[in-house]
């Protein structure tokens, strides 16, 4: 590999509401093993932390409408995504198992309006931690899994069904086995709910055994992690692995450690839906990397 190829591969383009941001250091991977044509480009959408069932007018007076608006916004994207992934906290927690299932059922019905039929789901702690994922699995199946799409290997890691935020030895062994034998230059995208690194443990923004997952991923040269949980964009590297959290679709949270308590950011009537949105991720075969776009719930 020549230096130029390496530079092009270490390229990430982030598109936010405020314009384009360029960040280096992400090992891009699209087009791996493929001729540099656009044939294998693709685009997927990440939605997260929809918290269906949440009620709190001070944080989101449109809690019953935001998810519908997000579904409509995805349907109105200029190009249909190859697939959509929800990275957890589909519903807001409840102690009542019956109510939990009602919320999961309503959520599934609402997102059934997505035009794209390839939709992947993951649990968050609000969905799964009080019953070890039992209800969630009844609706959405296995809580961790992998799949391939146009040459990219996707791995969904469940770090919430254990209320102590552990991935657990069994799943870590599965992860290792799932990746075993793969070419170490081949692209891997990890989808998960909590950060796999200690972003801010004081606010429970961590996975207790996340470092073990990162250790398993580390030999692979092109790994990118997309997650939720913290209700805001955040971008961090652990070694050569890039971690990108996405905005919530219910309320925003403050930046890690920016204030004494993790008090959610109040709804701003002057700027409704500010801090809420979803993400598009596009592979770029020609420039080799991922293009990430953050979308508002409603167009300004």
């Amino acid at each position: 590999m020549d230096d130029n190829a390496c530079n092009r591969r270490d390229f990430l383009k982030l598109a936010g509401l405020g314009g384009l941001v360029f960040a280096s250091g992400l090992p891009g991977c699209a087009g791996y093993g493929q001729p540099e044509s656009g044939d294998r480009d693709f685009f997927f959408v990440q939605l997260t932390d929809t918290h269906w069932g949440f009620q709190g007018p001070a944080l989101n007076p449109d809690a019953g409408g935001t998810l519908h608006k997000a579904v409509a916004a995805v349907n109105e994207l200029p190009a249909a995504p190859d697939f959509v992934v929800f990275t957890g906290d589909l519903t807001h927690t409840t102690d009542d198992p019956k109510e939990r299932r009602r919320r999961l059922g309503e959520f599934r019905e609402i997102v059934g309006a997505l035009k794209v039929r390839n939709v992947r789901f993951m649990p968050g702690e609000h969905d799964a931690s009080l019953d070890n994922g039992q209800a969630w699995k009844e609706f959405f199946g296995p809580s961790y899994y992998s799949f391939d799409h146009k040459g990219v290997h996707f791995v969904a890691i469940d770090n919430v069904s254990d209320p102590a935020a552990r991935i657990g030895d069994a799943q870590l062994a599965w992860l290792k086995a799932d990746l075993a034998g793969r070419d170490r230059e081949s692209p891997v995208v990890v989808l998960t709910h909590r950060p796999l690194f200690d972003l801010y443990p004081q606010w429970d923004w961590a996975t207790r055994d996340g470092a073990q997952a990162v250790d398993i991923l580390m030999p692979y040269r092109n790994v990118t992690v997309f997650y939720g949980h913290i209700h805001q964009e955040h971008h961090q590297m652990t070694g050569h692995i890039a971690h990108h959290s996405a905005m919530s679709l219910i309320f925003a949270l403050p930046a890690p450690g920016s204030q004494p308590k993790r008090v959610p950011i109040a709804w701003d009537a002057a700027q409704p839906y500010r801090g809420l949105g979803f993400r598009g991720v596009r592979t770029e075969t020609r420039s080799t990397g991922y293009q990430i776009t953050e979308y508002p719930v409603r167009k300004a």
Partner: protein
Amino acid sequence: MTPQRRRFLRTGILVAASSALGARVLAQGERIIRITARKFEYEPSAIELRKDEPVLLELVSADVTMGFNVPAFKVRTDIVPGQVARVRLKPDQAGTFDFYCDVFCGDFHEDMSGTIRVTA
């Protein structure tokens, strides 16, 4: 009562006291601080310590399994209902440090935290 008999009784009383304390064996100068966790708070939620003061934290849960995590001092434990969780702490720095529940316990779990204030 003979001196031997007094020594025997005194020893017996000490043994009985140690048994009643279960696994709790106090180090010299160690203070016990009892903390009750319940949805979604700790009581007390503000703890005052002196730097280098050894303390034994005894934690119980009034309802469901909780966690207790003090990242600054790398101290954590599960708090299981019906059991007393014990962790030792000897703060080596002054300041105010957060502790929090790291076992998801329901709505408002995110608010379940407290502080340890260590004075020099």
